[in-house]
């Protein structure tokens, strides 16, 4: 039955049956549709609410299409993001020594193992320092589990190998805790384990390339040379005159001329020397060594 706009009654009006039925009985029945015998609305269903959208309801989770909650599975796809608690010991205390939770503490990604007791932490390898990234953000990228630490640095936890199985129905980005982290890599269905004890071993092939350009010297000496010449000439003349008459008179005159000249030229000593030496060295790291990997570490 439909709602009729309530009639405005006038004085001395005859309240006909038709009026009473339309404005009282039928309208009251309309108002009763959503109420139970106690006067309360039955429930939140199409029978009681014309529009069931929860958009105006507060205090509830309002997912967008990118992070639908469907059949108990929460997905953070597209633009959706997941941020885990950041700070010291952000686990849930279940009492009796039991705990559970995942959180960021400093540079480390912590979690409580499935035994609800043992705390582990991963120190992811530094990736970058993205501006504006919210600490606690966590996601799967490629084969690795990435997170943003408390300082805002992006880090990633390695997985090792593919010891986990590939479940054909597995959703990329699925993540869970057994003793350690496990996740499904970004593409495909491969499970990646967050832990493996792998001993270090050296591969059999290891070589370095080293090439030397031979050492060559160029050396030229210009020898020292002296050039020396002496010129010396002496001239000596005596003139002696004796007079034998009367008074004796001797006249003697000596003259001596000496000329000496030296001419000396030195050619300086000169050494020319040039060395040329080039080394080319290439280290190869494709030596087939398996790394040692034993993350995470237990927190005691």
């Amino acid at each position, binding site marked *: 039955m439909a709602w009729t706009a309530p009639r405005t009654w006038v004085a001395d009006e005859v*309240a006909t*049956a038709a009026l*009473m*039925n339309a404005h*009282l*009985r039928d309208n*009251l*029945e309309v108002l*009763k549709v*959503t*109420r139970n*015998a*106690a*006067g*309360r*609305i*039955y*429930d*939140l269903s199409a029978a009681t609410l014309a529009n*069931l*959208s*929860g958009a105006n*309801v507060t205090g*509830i*989770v*309002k*997912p967008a299409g990118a992070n639908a*909650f469907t*059949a*108990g*599975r*929460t*997905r*953070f796809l597209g633009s*959706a*993001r*997941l941020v885990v608690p950041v700070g010291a010991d952000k686990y*849930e205390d279940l009492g009796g020594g039991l705990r559970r*939770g995942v959180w960021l503490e400093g540079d480390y990604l912590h979690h409580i193992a499935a035994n609800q007791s043992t705390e582990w932490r991963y120190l992811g390898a530094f990736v970058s320092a*993205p501006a*504006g*990234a*919210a600490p606690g*953000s*966590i*996601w*799967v*990228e490629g084969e690795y589990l*990435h997170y*943003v630490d408390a300082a805002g640095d*992006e880090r990633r936890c390695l997985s090792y190998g593919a010891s986990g199985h590939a479940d054909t129905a597995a*959703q*990329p*980005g*699925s*993540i*869970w*805790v057994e003793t350690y982290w496990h996740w499904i*890599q*970004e593409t495909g269905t491969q499970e990646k384990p967050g832990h493996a004890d792998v001993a270090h071993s050296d591969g059999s092939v290891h070589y370095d390339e080293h090439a030397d350009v031979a050492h060559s010297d160029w050396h030229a000496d210009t020898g020292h040379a002296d050039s020396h010449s002496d010129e010396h000439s002496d001239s000596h003349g005596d003139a002696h005159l004796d007079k034998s008459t009367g008074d004796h008179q001797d006249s003697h005159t000596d003259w001596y001329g000496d000329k000496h000249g030296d001419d000396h030229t030195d050619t300086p000593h000169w050494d020319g020397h040039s060395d040329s030496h080039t080394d080319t060295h290439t280290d190869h790291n494709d030596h087939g060594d398996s790394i040692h990997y034993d993350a995470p570490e237990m927190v005691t």
Partner: protein
Amino acid sequence: MAWTTPKTWTIGELVTADDLNTHLRDNLSHLKVAVNDDGKIPALSSTYIADLSGLNLTGIARLAATNDFADGVQDFSAGAGTRLVIPVGADKWAT
């Protein structure tokens, strides 16, 4: 106050005070329980709605017992069917 099925009035009937009190006053009072003076339901609470389950609502997270949001804890560890899928792809940090 209990609901009384509204009376079907008949031609020539004398409208008595009892009828008006039962079929108008009391039934209107019954209907007033869940609405305020403006005719709006004051709140989504058990005072006004007998069953507050959101299972029939759309556009909200429908939580199961295995992944409840309780006391600020989003718990994905109870029950075999609960799962948490985190973002995948390059640089999926939040801002």
